[in-house]
C-alpha cells in the first residue's frame, strides 16, 4: 500500500511510550475507516477492518543485545522523540512544506469522507483483479444489523457488487462492496491511471500467432485444468522455513532471550498489532452477526 500512516490515522500509539496502565491490556479494535454505508436511502453505520494481514514470518526487530525494539517518531535535526499527536502531514511546496490537517483533507470532500454510497451495482465478474488493491470487512455498528443483512442478501441474490468512491486517510478510493459468506467485503480498486497501459510499458502490438504454437500451449494448459484454487499451494514456504529454524534453535536453547515483561514491554511490531486487531475483529464480527463459528 503506497499510503503512509499519517497522524490521526487508524493506529494507536506507534511508539514505545505507552501508558503503563495499558500494559497487558489490548485496546479494542479500531476500524481503519468509520462512517455510513448508503444503500439507496437506507443508511447504516459501518467500520472497515482489514481482511488481509501482511505476510512473512512472525519476526520482530531486536537490538544487537536481543531486546525487542520499539518504533517512535523522532526529529531528524535533534533526535527529539515526538508523540503521534505532535506530528502533521507536510506537502512539499516551493522549497518548504505546507502542513495539512486530517480535518482539512476530510473537508475537501465531506460526503465521501463519511459515506460509502453504493450508487451503481455491477456484475461481479466485471471487477477486474488487476485493479484490486486491498480488502476489508465491513462490520456493522450498533442497531444496523437488519440493514446490513439486507444489503448482504440483495447483493448475493443479484450476484452484483455495489460500487462507490470514498475518502480514507487523505486518499480517495474506488470501492467494490461484495457479499461473501454472510458478510460484506470491501475491495479498494486502483484508479484507471494507476494501472499502466501496455503501450506505456513498451509492449509490442499484439499480432496473430503461429497456429501450431498456440495449439501446443493450449493443449498443455488443458492438461492442467482444475476446479479450484488449492490454498496449500499458496502457503508461505519462506515464512515456514523461518519458523522451523527458530523453533529448532529454541529447542536447542540457542540464542534464546527471556522475554521483557511488565509495563516496560515495547509496543508490538505493526504486524503483530494488526494480527491482534484482526483476532478482535473476528470476535466483533461473530458478535455482530449473531452466530458463533463452527468449532
Amino acid at each position, binding site marked *: 500500500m503506497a499510503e503512509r500512516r499519517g497522524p490521526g490515522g487508524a493506529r494507536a500509539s506507534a511508539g514505545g511510550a505507552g501508558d503503563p496502565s495499558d500494559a497487558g491490556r489490548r485496546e479494542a479494535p479500531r476500524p481503519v475507516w468509520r462512517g455510513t454505508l448508503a444503500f439507496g436511502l437506507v*443508511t447504516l453505520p459501518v467500520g472497515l477492518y482489514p481482511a488481509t494481514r501482511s505476510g512473512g514470518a512472525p519476526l520482530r526487530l531486536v537490538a544487537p543485545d536481543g531486546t525487542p525494539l520499539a518504533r517512535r517518531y523522532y526529529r531528524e535535526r535533534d533526535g527529539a522523540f515526538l508523540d503521534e499527536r505532535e*506530528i502533521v502531514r507536510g506537502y512539499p511546496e516551493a522549497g518548504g512544506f505546507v502542513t495539512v490537517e486530517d480535518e482539512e483533507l476530510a473537508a475537501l470532500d465531506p460526503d465521501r469522507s463519511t459515506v460509502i454510497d453504493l450508487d451503481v451495482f455491477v456484475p461481479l465478474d466485471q471487477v*477486474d483483479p488487476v485493479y484490486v488493491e486491498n480488502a476489508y470487512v465491513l462490520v456493522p455498528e450498533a442497531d444496523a444489523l437488519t440493514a446490513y443483512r*439486507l444489503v448482504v442478501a440483495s447483493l448475493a441474490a443479484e450476484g452484483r457488487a455495489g460500487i462507490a468512491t470514498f475518502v480514507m486517510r487523505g486518499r480517495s478510493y474506488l470501492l467494490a462492496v461484495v457479499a461473501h459468506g*454472510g458478510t460484506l467485503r470491501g475491495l479498494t480498486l486502483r484508479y484507471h491511471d494507476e494501472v499502466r497501459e501496455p503501450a506505456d510499458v513498451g509492449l509490442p502490438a499484439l499480432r496473430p500467432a503461429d497456429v501450431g504454437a498456440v495449439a501446443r500451449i493450449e493443449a498443455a494448459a488443458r492438461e492442467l485444468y482444475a476446479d479450484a484454487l488449492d490454498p496449500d499451494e499458496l502457503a508461505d514456504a519462506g515464512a515456514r522455513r523461518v519458523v522451523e529454524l527458530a523453533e529448532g534453535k529454541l529447542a536447542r536453547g540457542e540464542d534464546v532471550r527471556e522475554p521483557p515483561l511488565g509495563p516496560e514491554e515495547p509496543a508490538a511490531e505493526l504486524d503483530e498489532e494488526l494480527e491482534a486487531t484482526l483476532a478482535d475483529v473476528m470476535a466483533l464480527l461473530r458478535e455482530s452477526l449473531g452466530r458463533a463459528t463452527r468449532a
Partner: protein
Amino acid sequence: MTVRALWRGVVRIGDARVPVRLYPAVADRSVSFRLLDRRDREPVRRALVHPASGAVVAYEDAKRGYLAPTGELVVLRAEELASLAPEPSRDVTVTRFIPAEAIELRWYDRPFYLGPDEDDEAYHALAAALSRVGRVGVAHWVMRDREYHGALRLHRGYPVLVALRSAGEVLPLERFEAPPGDLDAELVDLARRLVGTLAADLDHEAYVDDYREAVRELVAAKAAGSEGPGRRRAPAPASPDLTEALRRSLARGREEGGTRG
C-alpha cells in the same frame, strides 16, 4: 514512455516454455507528503528505539527475533536467514488452470505485465492460447530471493501475472456462517429491486480520482496563503424504517433512470 523490466523468466505450462520479461503494471500516483513536527515543521522520521536506553538503532543494525508462543525470543542471525532464501530459478511454473471466479478477489495483490523476451513468436502464442483457454493459470516463481504466487491471465489482451497473497495473509473469514435468515421477504424483494434499478456495467476508465487533484489544489492554495478549514461529519444513524427507505430509494432510482450522478 517505457518501463524497465524487473525480472526475466520462463513461463512453463507443461512442456511449453515462453521466455518473458516482467514489468510493473502499477504506477504510483499518490500525492507524496512527509511527516513534520507540528510546532516548527521539522521533518520527522520513525526510528527503532531501544526501550531501555532510548538509543536509536539503525535499521541495518537491527536483528530479527522470533517470538515463540511460549513468550521466549529467539534471535536469528542474518546469515541464518540468508541460508533460508529459496533456490534461485527463472521458472514461472503454472500448476493449474481454473475458472476466474474460483479466485476470491481479496487474494489479488500486485499486477505485472509479461513482455516478450528473445522469442516473440512464443509470446504471441501465449497471449492467444490464454485467450482461447479463458481460464486463469496459477503460477509460482522466485524473484529477488522471494517466492511468489500469481494468477496468469490477460489484461487488455496482454499476459499479466497478478501476484496472489499467500495463504497466511488472507484471513480465514470463511469460518463465519451467514447470519440466520430472519429477513422479511418483502424487504429483500424491495432491496433486490433497488439493486436491479441501479444495475450497470463497471467501466474502470469512467472513474477519475478528482480528490487527488483537490489535495494538490489545497496545498497550492495554502502555499499561496489561504486557509481551508472544515469539520468532519458524524456517521448517519441506521435507517429506522427500512421498508420506507427502500420504497423512496426505488422511486428515486426510477427518476434517475439508473444512471450514475
